[in-house]
């Protein structure tokens, strides 16, 4: 049941980037909002602080999780631990069955995507109802979310209008207001009829055993409050030490995600009131593999704001669907190989210019390009990437660069082939790929080395 990574399909999508133009426009808009919102606060100090707080939380993860569990149970909640996505989905289904659920209203959660919860629920005869507008659209379209906070970022208002016309029998509109309110009307009755409500978790506070969920639409609040059972899904990395730490995280998350000072709703779930049940499913699903490698541990600091994908020139061009993973963009390229499938290591970490724009935007200062290079290295070392030809080419390259006479011969060869290639209609290999859409400059009559030699 666990997702496998389709290496060939993903590679193809990166070779023929096909994201619709609306994606780049929306991403630039998000980025502009973020940058406007981070002016006027001590942004760098907040980032450093958030990084330190996450480093501390991850370094004490075992104890903090146990502490969280204890306090959460004291509040009347129940904790379920799940090693894998499948185990977590099984647990979710058992909870639904125990409470006789026929439908589940769902707030936004990326972990739910890891679990393929909708498929699992549907297979068990339980109706999964996505309530976040973006998730609702994506579910209706039969797509996967293409962005961690804007699941329908790949669809234009026109696309959504056509979808609503076709699937909901509504009159066509491409007005976001009309479309959003149509979805609202559609979902109203679902909250109160569902037996189980699901939310994700943004932060789990060890000190208090409370769950923090941030959102703007109010669907998360309704999903948690209206059904008699609330199930929260969280990755193990979501636990933080203290409530006070939220003073750092909340402003960073809201500004980075949507350019807000704070989200419209910050829910602190304090344990079930009378007549209510609350569960928290704590999911590993590959996270401990990221933890075990000190070089990728930092990726667990991620607070899922989406800023790294908003700014990424590759993500903007290929779209979230191309990554073949629940988590797209730079953070997806970093976490997917270890969390999901090592096969991803041969493609995702390589599909980047290492421009570092993501690192600059990351509110918790994850060094994403450094991790991409590290994953490239692991891929080469474990022969997941860098085949025989590439290794041979690399050896030849190093040999040519290890000795000045060899270097001079290589330079001569390069000058010659580039001259020939410029005239030849047949352009094979890497040079050909390069020259289909670019020209090479004519090699200078004299290399710098020759010029320097002639000067002294």
């Amino acid at each position, binding site marked *: 049941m666990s997702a496998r990574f389709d290496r060939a399909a993903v590679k193809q999508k*990166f*070779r023929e*980037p096909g994201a619709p133009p609306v994606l780049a426009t929306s991403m630039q808009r998000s980025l502009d909002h973020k940058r406007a919102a981070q002016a006027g606060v001590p942004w760098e100090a907040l980032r450093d602080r958030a990084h330190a707080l996450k480093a501390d939380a991850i370094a004490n993860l075992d104890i903090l999780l146990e502490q969280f569990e204890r306090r959460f149970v004291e509040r009347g909640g129940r904790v379920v631990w799940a090693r894998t996505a499948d185990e977590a989905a099984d647990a979710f289904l058992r909870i639904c069955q125990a409470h006789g659920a026929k439908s589940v209203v769902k707030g936004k959660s990326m972990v739910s995507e890891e679990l393929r919860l909708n498929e699992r629920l549907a297979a068990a005869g339980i109706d999964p109802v996505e309530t976040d507008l973006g998730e609702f659209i994506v579910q209706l379209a039969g797509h996967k979310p293409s962005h961690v906070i804007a699941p329908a970022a790949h669809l234009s208002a026109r696309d959504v209008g056509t979808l609503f016309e076709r699937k909901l029998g509504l009159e066509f509109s491409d007005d976001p207001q009309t479309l959003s309110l149509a979805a609202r009307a559609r979902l109203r009755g679902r909250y109160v009829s569902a037996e189980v409500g699901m939310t994700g978790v943004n932060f789990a506070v060890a000190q208090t055993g409370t769950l923090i969920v941030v959102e703007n639409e109010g669907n998360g609040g309704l999903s948690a409050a209206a059904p008699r059972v609330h199930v929260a899904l969280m990755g193990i990395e979501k636990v933080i030490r203290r409530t006070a730490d939220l003073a750092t995280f909340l402003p960073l998350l809201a500004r980075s995600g949507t350019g807000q000072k704070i989200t419209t709703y910050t829910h602190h779930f304090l344990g079930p009131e009378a007549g209510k049940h609350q569960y928290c499913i704590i999911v590993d699903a590959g996270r401990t593999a990221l933890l075990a490698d000190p070089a990728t541990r930092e990726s667990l600091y991620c607070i899922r704001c989406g800023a790294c994908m908003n700014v990424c*020139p*590759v993500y903007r*061009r*290929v779209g979230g669907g191309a990554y073949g993973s629940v988590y797209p963009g730079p953070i997806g390229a970093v976490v997917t190989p270890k969390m999901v499938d090592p096969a991803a290591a041969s493609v995702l*970490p*390589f*599909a*980047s*210019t*290492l*421009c*570092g*724009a993501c*690192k600059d935007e990351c509110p918790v200062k994850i060094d994403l390009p*450094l991790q991409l*290079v590290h*994953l*490239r*290295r*692991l*891929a*080469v*070392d474990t022969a997941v*990437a*860098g085949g025989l030809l*590439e*290794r041979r080419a*690399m*050896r030849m*390259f*190093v040999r040519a*660069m*290890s*000795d*000045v006479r060899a*270097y001079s011969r290589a*330079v001569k060869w*390069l*000058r010659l082939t*580039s001259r020939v290639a410029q005239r030849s209609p047949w352009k094979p290999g*890497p040079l050909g*790929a*390069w020259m*289909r*859409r*670019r*020209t*090479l*400059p004519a*090699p*200078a009559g*004299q*290399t*710098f*080395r020759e*010029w*320097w030699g002639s000067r002294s």
Partner: protein
Amino acid sequence: MTDVRTYRRGEPVALFVPCFVDVFNPEAARAVVSVLERLAVRVEYPSEQTCCGQPAYNAGHFAPAEELADRFARVFQDYAWIVTPSGSCAAMARAGFAHLSPSSPAASVGARVYDFASFLTGVLGVADVGARFAHRVTFHEGCHALRELGALDASLRLLGAVRDLTLVDLPLADECCGFGGSFSVSFDALSTSMGEAKCDHALSTGAEFLVSGDPSCLLHVGGMLRKRSSALKTLHLAEVLAAT
């Protein structure tokens, strides 16, 4: 980039010229020599030099990269100051060498490598190098120089001091041009899509020259501009600063 060390007059400065500059863009390296000598700096070119190892490092081949980093360190070990016209090679030496092996000789030699603009403003403390360039110019800083070296301010200060030069802002200046070394071949369509955007933005400025401190960006974007038979020419920052 500012430095805690200070450059004393008369100290030799080693020039590192990466292979593709040696072959395709030697003018950039010659311009570096010309500007430094104009400022009475003694430039030396260690003839044993070849490559910093960046292509191997970026491709994940760490063992070959380390070999070349060590070699680089041996060739340049006697120099306190090393300057290169390539922002990405400077970033490789300063950050990549340390990542390969934090306490290696290569890491300590790497820390003495400067991109040209940072060396002028941060080490020599010069912004006006006496250049004159009566043209409309737009500037693209390569990603490594921009983000890892923080060289943008230095570049803009240097260009700002050039007589008769008109600097036009490049839209979305901080977006990558799409070169990315082997990325430009493995993901050709992505690379050129990013390059097209850079070309469009540069052309929209109405500038005569697209200038950069990174010759690899220029190789890529310049190659695309030539394919379009565009009148917009590319120049290395050093070539602008060498003009009088």
